[in-house]
């Protein structure tokens, strides 16, 4: 090949190379063009809202722009629009809107979901005014403890600020002023000004409203935690929680549908067991639809229609476990709740009833030490034990649960009750009943042989006997 011929070959190859680079640029352009397809659809009245709020509240606008709502063209106005009869409606830039988007607003697109939610305990979470919890929060501790504590999870009625003559206060733009003690509030049972109950943003945080977030336990953990209902802590110590935390990358949390066994199988979350779909049942927003016991009162009871509810839960369990495995769990779960009821809850409840019948306690809650002791026994320790069993958290069942129940019952509650009821026959009769129960006979004392066995264990294991 002559030098000139080589030059021609170089020129031809160079053109081919440049052509190939153009194809590379085209391929890269195609990859970049994927982004605009996900751009928000800002339509109708929402266009004006978005233009302004993208400047004024860019974070909110950005959160919404990345949402499924944005992709589908559900904008600001679709959720915040108000009608004449809405008490909190006000004119803003020529449109009648309301600050708070309620389940009634969501219902226009998500009717089935709102119906399910209406049937749930979540929707009635703010109805706790008559409870001892409310007495503690609002009165014993102080109203603002309830405002910033209880109400932020349970929700509260949303109210306006009113003038001295009972009129709704309005700001200089005519916007009705909401009582700061009742708004902001994303408590799940919030009672809204339009009469609806609930706050969808409790789980689907505004303004992204992701299902991914609601599928994760952290969302539930805002409220389902702490000394009286530590579900998130129990979940975290359970094998379920460990599987979730260690395999979160395989949870397919972004999936459009999220059917256990089809879209994911690495681990369950709160949502998986209580709400999400399985191949045999659809998703539900009634969080109690698969719960068979109530573990919240002094004495636990099975709920109305508990059998179909349990079967629904078992169906979820059976996606990952063999039926025998699930049945065996429910046998020990039921037995454990019965044990708590029979051994501690019913006797303690009988003691408190006897003390009240004998007029040894005032009608005012929490003005006597034993009322605090009793409250802690069932409301904190008793729930921890029961919930620990229900969600397979061994440490919460035992050390944070039954151990503390027993310690309280034997070393605080009964001694306090015996001191108050001493000399009152009706109360002492209850104590006698308790002493005679086989579960409490251990207090009669153990044999020297049993004690020697314990001592020998410690001597062998630690070289010393705890005394």
């Amino acid at each position: 090949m002559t030098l000139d011929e080589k030059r021609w070959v170089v020129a031809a190859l160079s053109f081919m190379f440049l052509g190939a680079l153009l194809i590379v640029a085209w391929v890269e352009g195609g990859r970049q063009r994927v982004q605009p397809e996900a751009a928000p659809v800002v339509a109708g009245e929402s266009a004006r809202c978005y233009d302004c709020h993208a400047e004024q509240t860019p974070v909110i606008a950005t959160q919404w722009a990345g949402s499924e709502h944005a992709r589908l063209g559900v904008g600001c106005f679709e959720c915040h629009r108000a009608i004449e009869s809405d008490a909190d409606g006000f004119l803003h830039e020529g449109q009648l809107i309301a600050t708070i988007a309620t389940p009634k607003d969501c219902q226009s697109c998500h009717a089935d979901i709102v119906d399910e939610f209406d049937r749930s305990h979540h929707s009635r979470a703010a109805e706790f005014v008559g409870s001892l919890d409310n007495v503690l929060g609002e009165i014993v501790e102080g109203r603002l403890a309830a405002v910033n504590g209880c109400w932020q999870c349970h929700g509260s009625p949303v109210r306006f600020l009113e003038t001295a003559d009972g009129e709704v206060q309005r700001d200089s733009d005519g916007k009705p002023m909401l009582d700061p003690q009742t708004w902001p509030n994303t408590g799940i049972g919030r009672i809204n000004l339009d009469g609806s109950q609930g706050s969808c943003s409790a789980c689907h945080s505004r303004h992204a409203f992701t299902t991914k977030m609601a599928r994760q336990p952290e969302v539930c953990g805002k409220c389902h935690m702490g000394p009286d209902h530590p579900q998130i802590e129990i979940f975290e110590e359970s094998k379920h929680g460990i599987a979730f935390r260690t395999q979160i990358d395989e949870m397919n949390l972004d999936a459009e549908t999220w059917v256990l066994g089809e879209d994911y199988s690495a681990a369950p979350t709160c949502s998986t067991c209580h709400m999400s779909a399985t191949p045999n049942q659809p998703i539900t927003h009634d969080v109690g639809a698969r719960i068979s016991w109530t573990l919240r009162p002094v004495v636990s009871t099975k709920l109305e229609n508990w059998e179909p509810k349990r079967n629904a839960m078992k169906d979820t369990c059976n996606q990952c476990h063999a039926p025998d495995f699930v049945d065996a769990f429910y046998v020990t779960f039921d037995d454990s709740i019965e044990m708590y009821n029979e051994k501690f809850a019913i006797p303690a409840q009988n003691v408190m009833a006897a003390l009240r019948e004998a007029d040894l306690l005032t009608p005012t809650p929490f003005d006597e030490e034993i009322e605090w002791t009793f409250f802690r026994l069932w409301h904190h320790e008793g729930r921890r034990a029961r919930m620990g069993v229900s969600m397979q958290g061994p440490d919460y069942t035992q050390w944070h649960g039954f151990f503390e129940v027993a310690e309280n019952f034997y070393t605080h509650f009964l001694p306090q009750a015996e001191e108050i009821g001493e000399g009152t026959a009706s109360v002492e009769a209850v104590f006698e009943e308790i002493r005679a129960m086989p579960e409490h006979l251990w207090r009669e004392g153990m044999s020297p042989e049993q004690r020697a066995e314990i001592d020998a264990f410690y001597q062998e294991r630690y070289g010393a006997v705890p005394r």
Partner: protein
Amino acid sequence: MTMTAGPAVTPESSSWATWLASRVPIDLEALRHFSNEPVPNHLKYWWWCLGGTPALLFGVQAVTGILLTVYYIPDAGSAYESVDRLTTVIPFGWFIRSIHRWASHLMIAAVILHVMRVFFTGAYRAPRELNWMLGVLLLAVTLGFGFTGYSLVWEQLSYWGVTVAANLTDAVPVVGGVMGRMLRGGESVGSNTLTRLFILHIGVMPTLLTLLLAGHILLIRLHGVTEFEFESPDKAPDEAARTYPFFPHHAMTEVIIGVGLAFALTCLAVIFPAELAEKANPLETPAHIKPEWYFFWTFRWLKLTSLTFAVLSIGFAGFLALIWPYIDERLRRRNTASEASVYVGAVAVVVLLVLTIWEAMASS
């Protein structure tokens, strides 16, 4: 004190050329002479130019490798994710990674072909034995580049490939245990191993390869390219007919190869872009896994023999390859017409091919 004069600067030279020539006093004429030796006519055919091809591809690897290092994170917890991000998010990341991957395959293929050509044409014989040895070392470093490169991706092949390599190292008698721990950075393959592989891939090996390559090219230039031997010297054409100038003729051939490679690599990157397999999972030994094609023969050999025997035999074969010019010299001292090297080479190629094809066809 007197200063020696710099290179001659002609009156026509521009002012910047004069300035440069006085600051960098290189004898351009001598340089031109040194770099423009006539090369034999057979180099007009590209298949005789395979020695330059890996050097060109090494340049491609250096550039694309530096770009990849901008985003790559050498940590067991982040490596795979950083490669994933490079491949799916970073603009042109997929292209750079694909070029790097394909260039590595082509570079290894070109080095192997070059070694075979040199071997079968006897170009390693005196006085070029040392250059052959540098070439064998270059082949070893190139294979090392390939191994450490695909290990950095931290997919299942990476993790289990390193695990096999570390086990092989353990099997080396006496020092194997220490070497294995040094490679792993502890008792098990993990972040420490990845850091070591990263340093080897982007630091140690490029330095080593650059030095070996410089020595290799220098020796080629000092000895000149091997010419064909003719049965009788009087039948050989004179030098002018046997050779042609390096510049611009041979340089233009290298340019053709370079641009052709650029075109081929771009097409391969677009049509078969580098993908990402499953992430490394120490808890899950894959049922079906194979190394890259250039290690198929070692993998099959491992399956056929014991670990220690495989390590020792592969090491011994490598050592024989390294010192082959001296073995060949001994053979030819007994029989000057000996073609033993051709037979040995042919057997070696057939054995390697059989092992490679056997492994390629095996399902696991």
